[in-house]
């Protein structure tokens, strides 16, 4: 496989700079990979001999595990580094981390970091492929991709759909990746939440801005409900979690007044009874567990494409040939 021919370029830092065609290529490539997870032996030799480091400066069980499954199912050699056990917590700078990775001749780095721009920073400094697994409030591209794949699975398309992202948009990398990706795929996008959690100028990205969740439910085909972190209440963005639930919580009672059935997504982990009620999360229109399944397939697709795999050869690669 040859990195020069990767249809995505060297790295996946975000969806903002990808074209609709590139996003479609990732989603289409993910389709054949879904099936691998259903097999008895869930392994294909696509990335045999490749070394991948999962570098997590912030705790995240679900994203890290999802990447790790994707890597292992493609037969890569993986190493996990968590901030708590690494020299990072002893004050090592990001630039030293980059130099060390470079010295170790790692093929790919999957990084989660608390600072916006950290993935770009690393990608600019090392020859390895860098996959952003979330940087600060900036982007979480594989989450955006798996959300889109899940919506496309259930609605049959993205073009022309109305998707509303509900909750803490200001501090959300998931929101930004969804906005960039969905707009490129022809969806209409709205954001909804208390104005304190909507960043300045968000409307200029080309999204509708709704302040009441009732309006979002009237408008949308799909709701992507974001987690409200406890620290936002502590920082004063909302007065209480109970009030947040009363005014912005997605409940069955509210959904019953919708003009159509809404597809419900949540990137997890959920605060049941805060941004989403349990009967909605576990209800018939929730695709939250499908998101988890699709997460592995999308990440396999990204790894495959960054390693130089071609979208049209994914089916063959999966059958045992190397890409």
């Amino acid at each position, binding site marked *: 496989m040859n990195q020069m021919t990767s249809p995505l370029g060297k790295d996946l830092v975000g969806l903002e700079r990808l074209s609709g065609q590139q996003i479609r290529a990732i989603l289409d490539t993910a389709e054949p990979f879904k099936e691998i997870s259903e097999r008895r032996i869930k392994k294909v030799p696509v990335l045999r001999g490749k070394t991948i480091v999962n570098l997590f400066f912030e705790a995240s069980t679900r994203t890290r595990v999802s990447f790790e499954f994707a890597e292992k199912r493609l037969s890569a050699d993986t190493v996990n580094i968590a901030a708590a056990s690494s020299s990072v917590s002893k004050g090592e700078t990001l630039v030293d981390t980059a130099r060390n990775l470079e010295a170790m001749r790692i093929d790919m780095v999957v990084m989660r970091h608390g*600072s916006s721009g950290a993935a*770009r920073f690393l990608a600019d400094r090392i020859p390895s492929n860098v996959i952003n697994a979330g940087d600060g409030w900036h982007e979480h591209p594989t989450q955006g991709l798996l959300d889109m794949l899940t919506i496309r699975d259930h609605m049959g398309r993205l073009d022309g759909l109305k998707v509303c992202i509900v909750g803490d948009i200001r501090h959300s990398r998931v929101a930004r990746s969804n906005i960039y990706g969905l707009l490129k795929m022809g969806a209409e996008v709205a954001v909804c939440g208390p104005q304190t959690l909507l960043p*300045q100028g968000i409307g200029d990205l080309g999204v509708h801005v709704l302040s009441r969740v009732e309006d979002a439910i009237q408008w949308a085909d799909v709701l992507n409900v974001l987690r409200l972190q406890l620290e936002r209440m502590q920082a004063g963005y909302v007065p209480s979690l109970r009030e947040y639930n009363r005014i912005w919580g997605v409940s069955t009672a509210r959904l019953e007044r919708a003009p159509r059935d809404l597809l419900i997504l949540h990137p997890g982990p959920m605060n049941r009874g805060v941004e989403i009620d349990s009967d909605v999360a576990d209800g018939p229109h929730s695709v939250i567990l499908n998101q988890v399944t699709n997460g592995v397939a999308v990440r396999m697709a990204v790894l495959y494409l960054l390693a130089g795999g071609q979208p049209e050869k994914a089916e063959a690669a999966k059958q045992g040939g190397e890409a």
Partner: protein
Amino acid sequence: MSGKILLRGGRVLDPSQKLDDVRDVYLVDGQVATIGERLTPGDDAHVIDCDRLVVTPGLIDVHVHLREPGEEHKETITTGARAAAAGGFTAVCAMPNTDPPVDDPAAVGFVVSEGRRAGAARVYPVGCISVGRRGERLALIGEMVEAGAVAVTDDGSPVMDSGLMRLALEYSLAFGIPVADHPEDLGLSGRGHMNEGLVSTRLGLPGKPNAAEDTHIMRDLLLAELTGGRIHLQHVSTALGVEMIRQAKARGVRVSAEATPHHLILTDEAVEGYRTEAKMNPPLRSVADVAAVRAGLADGTLDVVATDHAPHHYDEKEAAFTDAPNGVVGLETSLALMLTRLVGEGVIDLPTLVDRMSCQPARVFGLLGGTLAPGGVADVTVFDPEAEWTVDPKAFRSKSRNTPFGGWTVKGQARCTIVGGRVVFER
């Protein structure tokens, strides 16, 4: 030893005397002796050919951070004074937010003596407004002025307590110095790392709204009006800030204000790609703000160009954006950037530039120089307005290289910097 220097045949540009003509300038014993045509110098005079060069009263930068004491790995008074001379500056005012801060007469004395020892641009100390820059009680302003402080400020931080700011303005009246403020409402700017707007939203970086600066500019103007004190507003970056200062001046408030080269030239788009060289406080703002700051400099609402020269060690800037410190160096690029982008684009003419970089700084901070009138101090800048060069941060005399202008091709360069009749820099 300052003997005799004849600056031969340059374009002598001195707004203080409304002079703009080809002349000889004769400097004797540290003073300007004569300006005239085809002067005959003494046999012992050093003659400097200034053909096609511009000769002006020495440039003065009233806002620099020289980092000494405490952060000598970024800059020292000596390296800063030499960088200033290389940039064509004959004097700079050193901000007191060092470690420890310059908040007593002994610290002021240290800056004075280190500045003298550097033997380059003059270094004027600025003292703190409050003890330890803590914003609680007034520092020894009177004794610091006696020791050589030319102004006071808690720069790096605003004075958040309006009552303390009022006291500082009132108390400083006795000493005839301006009280300089870094206008920023920290409650509004909070954890911000760049201008608040579409770019910060896209990059996922916390922003500082214009209102954080505007609120404090308004407050400072009201307090200056209330007390009759002299407020000097540092690094003004907002359109409304400029307009409020304009209106205050019209009603007689004693206010002066700065514009930095970076706020006159760059917008928050420069942060794109998480470029930490474009991270400073106040942050780079919008196109409309840049236009307003330019208009403010042109009509005199903003009295001076000041660089806010803020050196940082390279590895401090080589970091994730939110981990990197604020600040850019400016001493060695200011003149060229102003010539290229402000004069070159017709925003101001050359005499206005010299006024804003020499005459007004001297007037506002009550410093020597700002004029070539005979009898005045022989602080002179000679520059080549046509010299084209490319900004190479590695070639800076400053210890630090943190500039967003690296690689820019600019026009205009200092050739000779003379302080007290002594050549301190020649290129």
